[in-house]
């Protein structure tokens, strides 16, 4: 117990949270419990004043909905409080470092939000006459020019809705190109370390999938890949920088080998943040690559989307790009190429892959971010992202096992294994310990090629002091895991919830509110 000069206690003995007395409400000061909207008893309330409908005859064809729907309502003060309380049970970039590897959780500039909400962008209809939305088409075109130039590619398809949707776009373009050549290749090769979306996407558009092994230094095994290439291989999907946080040194040779065997190269661009402004994928022989605007170009992740996944294409695949797209005319105005004129303007297109023009709200944000940084700033983004990751990697030397650490610098993320933890202690324990330290954990158990993988991506929007604090916290937690500190198994102790039983949730799924099936909250 410490006291000041007047003898007043300034630092009381703390009780472990679990030992603190129960409160009447279940709340703990600023940690406020919040019931479901369905647990209130009043379904008649509303928070929207709506003018009374004038009396008219119904034209609903006898389909009037009579039965109650079961939608509770809240007045505005109640709703604001409900969602504000819920929000406080979330960790977020705005609260602290969010080192989720491969997810690029960087700061989301608020100017992006302000620009996306200009009525000229937010309040325009996707089917509005093209003459009335020239500014929107200009945004799409300007962003497209940036993406093409930054990647050194030939064209870009803007409509994919997220990274995995972009993968789909790229693979459909590859299939369309093979179809046009009269080839029925059926196989896509994917490295073992790939994101799960890669094989899932290949299967989603009708391809078979085969894994390519990695070398001991965490990269694609060029010899194994070359040996597998053949007349059945439509293409390969490579992540570069890869999910081990390493640049695929042999990328150009891989591309050349795949091309020589008649295939195409898809690059998963999830990790473009590491190389933006410093390396152009077009120089490495890539045929298609998606760019997650919600990673590299700072559009917010929003608790799981919306994302946006434009796909840059090589000259070989550009003729097959999806509809619709924006074309600039000689007079400087913009035109939309849709189904109507596709036969003349874009006869090879594989067709439409979403209802409208893509994630316009993300385009305005990404363009705002790109213009803010400029070509020089974006180069610095990649440099600082890589610097921060290497700083974390080296600051943990001798404490955590970095399977590819000895081979040299990493790119934008640092990868560790669970080797050396005390028996019974796992990556999960370290993750949950970090929660108590006030950090979001790193990506766990991915990539699959490293046992108990911990993938740490600090991003460039963290300063040195924030990194030092994170490294200190991770060192402390890792030391506890190596020493076998049983208290770590109980982490997190200070989060809104302690460890949650995911097995029970899956065994008997309760996915919607039903009064009789839900367990009651503990008093």
């Amino acid at each position, binding site marked *: 117990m410490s006291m000041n000069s007047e003898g007043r206690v300034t630092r009381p003995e703390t009780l472990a949270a679990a030992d603190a007395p129960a409160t009447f409400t279940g709340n703990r000061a600023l940690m406020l419990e919040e019931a479901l909207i369905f647990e209130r008893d009043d379904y008649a309330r509303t*928070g929207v004043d709506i003018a009374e409908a004038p009396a008219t005859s119904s034209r609903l064809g006898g389909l009037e909905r009579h039965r109650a729907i079961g939608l509770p309502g809240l007045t505005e003060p109640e709703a604001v409080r409900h969602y504000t309380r819920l929000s406080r049970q*979330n960790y977020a970039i705005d609260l602290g470092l969010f080192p989720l590897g491969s997810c690029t959780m960087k700061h989301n500039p608020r100017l992006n939000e302000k620009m996306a909400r200009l009525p000229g962008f937010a309040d325009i209809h996707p089917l509005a006459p093209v003459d009335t939305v020239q500014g929107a088409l200009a945004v799409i075109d300007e962003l497209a020019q940036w993406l093409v130039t930054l990647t050194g590619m030939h064209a870009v398809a803007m409509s994919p809705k997220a990274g995995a949707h972009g993968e789909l776009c790229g693979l459909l373009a590859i299939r369309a190109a093979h179809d046009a050549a009269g080839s029925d290749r059926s196989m896509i090769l994917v490295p073992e370390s790939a994101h799960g979306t890669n094989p899932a996407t290949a299967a989603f558009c009708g391809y078979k999938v085969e894994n390519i092994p990695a070398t001991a230094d965490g990269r694609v095994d060029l010899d194994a890949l070359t040996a597998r290439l053949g007349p059945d291989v439509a293409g390969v999907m490579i992540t570069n920088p890869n999910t081990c946080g390493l640049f695929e040194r042999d990328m150009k040779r891989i591309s050349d080998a795949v091309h020589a065997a008649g295939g195409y190269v898809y690059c998963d661009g999830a990790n473009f943040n590491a190389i933006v402004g410093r390396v152009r994928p077009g120089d490495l022989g890539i045929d298609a690559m998606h760019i997650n605007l919600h990673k590299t170009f700072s559009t917010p992740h929003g608790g799981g*989307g919306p994302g946006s996944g434009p796909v840059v294409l090589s000259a070989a695949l550009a003729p097959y790009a999806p509809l619709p797209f924006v074309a600039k005319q000689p007079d400087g105005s913009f035109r939309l190429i849709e189904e109507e004129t596709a036969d003349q303007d874009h006869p090879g297109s594989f067709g439409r892959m979403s209802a409208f023009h893509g994630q316009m709200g993300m385009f305005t944000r990404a363009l705002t971010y790109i213009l803010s940084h400029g070509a020089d700033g974006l180069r610095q983004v990649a440099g600082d992202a890589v610097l921060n990751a290497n700083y974390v990697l080296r600051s943990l030397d001798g404490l955590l096992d970095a399977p590819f650490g000895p081979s040299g610098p990493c790119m934008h993320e640092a990868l560790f294994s669970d080797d050396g933890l005390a028996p019974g202690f796992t990556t999960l324990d370290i993750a949950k310990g970090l929660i108590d330290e006030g950090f979001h954990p790193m990506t766990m158990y991915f990539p699959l090629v490293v046992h108990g993988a911990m993938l740490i991506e600090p991003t460039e929007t963290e300063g040195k002091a924030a990194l030092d604090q994170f490294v200190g916290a991770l060192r402390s937690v890792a030391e506890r895991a190596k020493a076998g500190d049983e208290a770590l198994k109980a982490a997190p102790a200070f989060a809104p919830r302690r460890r949650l039983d995911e097995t029970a949730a899956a065994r008997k799924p309760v996915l919607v509110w039903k009064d009789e099936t839900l367990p009651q909250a503990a008093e």
Partner: protein
Amino acid sequence: MRYLPLTDTDRQAMLATIGASSIDDLFIDVPAEARLPGPIAGLPAHASELAVERHMTRLARRNLSAGEAPFFLGCGAYRHHVPASVDHLIQRGEFLTSYTPYQPEIAQGTLQALFEFQTQVARLFGCDVANASMYDGSTACWEAITMARRVTKRGKAILSAGLHPHYVSLAKTMARFTGDLLDTALPTLTPGAPGDDMARLLAGIDADTSCVVVQNPNILGHVADLSELAARCHDKGALLIAVVTEPVALGAIRSPGEMGADIVVGEGQSIGVGLNFGGPYVGLFACNEKHVRQMPGRLCGVTTDADGQRGFVLTLSTREQHIRREKATSNICTNAGLCALAFSIHLTLLGETGLRNLAALNHAGAVAAAERLATLPGVELVNGAFFNEFTLKLPREARPVVRALADMGILGGVSLGRLYPDAADLANGLVVAVTETSTAEDVEALAQALEAEIAA
């Protein structure tokens, strides 16, 4: 640069820790010929917030926004008033800058909101369960077709003539590569045509049919009873997939689930999200409990923590790509979390009372507008039953009319020529949507401009 906290002093100190002499040295694994020596030529350098705002505002001014004009566009995207608190709440950093809730102990806010969203969607659609969202209505529709293929192990889908043509277009794109068979048809402007299409659907279901996909209200605004179709599907072992592009309609008309649909998908944009020139939107996806393990997308479920307290987690992830890889039910990863939150908040503010009142107001406005516009010389109302959107058959091609109306400052509807450029029979069709944002004065302005333009 205002978004980069490292100083040069920091960088030097960190490089010393790493044992590198420069940041360029950290890119040693990139072959020298692929390393760019400096910023890419021909691109502008960084800019101040003021300068960027000026540039973007100039571009925004080149658009005619819906709020500036009498506005009647629909066909899959609807303009409704969104309460100010919705946008305020989704901009709280804890929602805006959080990630997919992989660490549930510190993501209970997102997870509880998703659980509430799933329940709201399931109830609105009349289904047992709903997922935590898809990209949009069009992609949700294709996912439903593939789910029906997995459930029934059959490969033929029959699409109604009233399904949004962009949704049909997307399905055709995908089916070309997956080998699914699609039976499609074009809508017509003949009064009574929805009945003809219903007859086509009923007659077409056979032992190879995985599903029938029907939109309600459909692309022309028709509303229909799906009960007989559902019964026929079930007799033949097929699933009925209903598509809802205007969920506000379900405050007035019976839900697809109530009418027997097995899977209900939709575009959630019209509640809480805004027009945004087509995205981001939010795909809604609901089905019956027995098919839940064939569902795509994230699912949030209830569980307890180590202290026995109720909590929420992502669940049934063995369906998903990060676990099942090429055997997953879908490749979707990122969905539309923040738009789902906006949808849920708006629906919570409305509640049952507000949604029903909003739907009633929309319907009344649309009925009044349809009656007024049908009095114009040569103009025919195509619909028998409709909700807040209907189709007019003009005495001339609608597309130039829409363009001329825009020149007069009126966004007067969607011409079917834009949606079906190859269908001459549809060229005179104009689809008009009337929501609570359209005033009686707006309707009158449209009526007078339309009359003048038709006569021209």
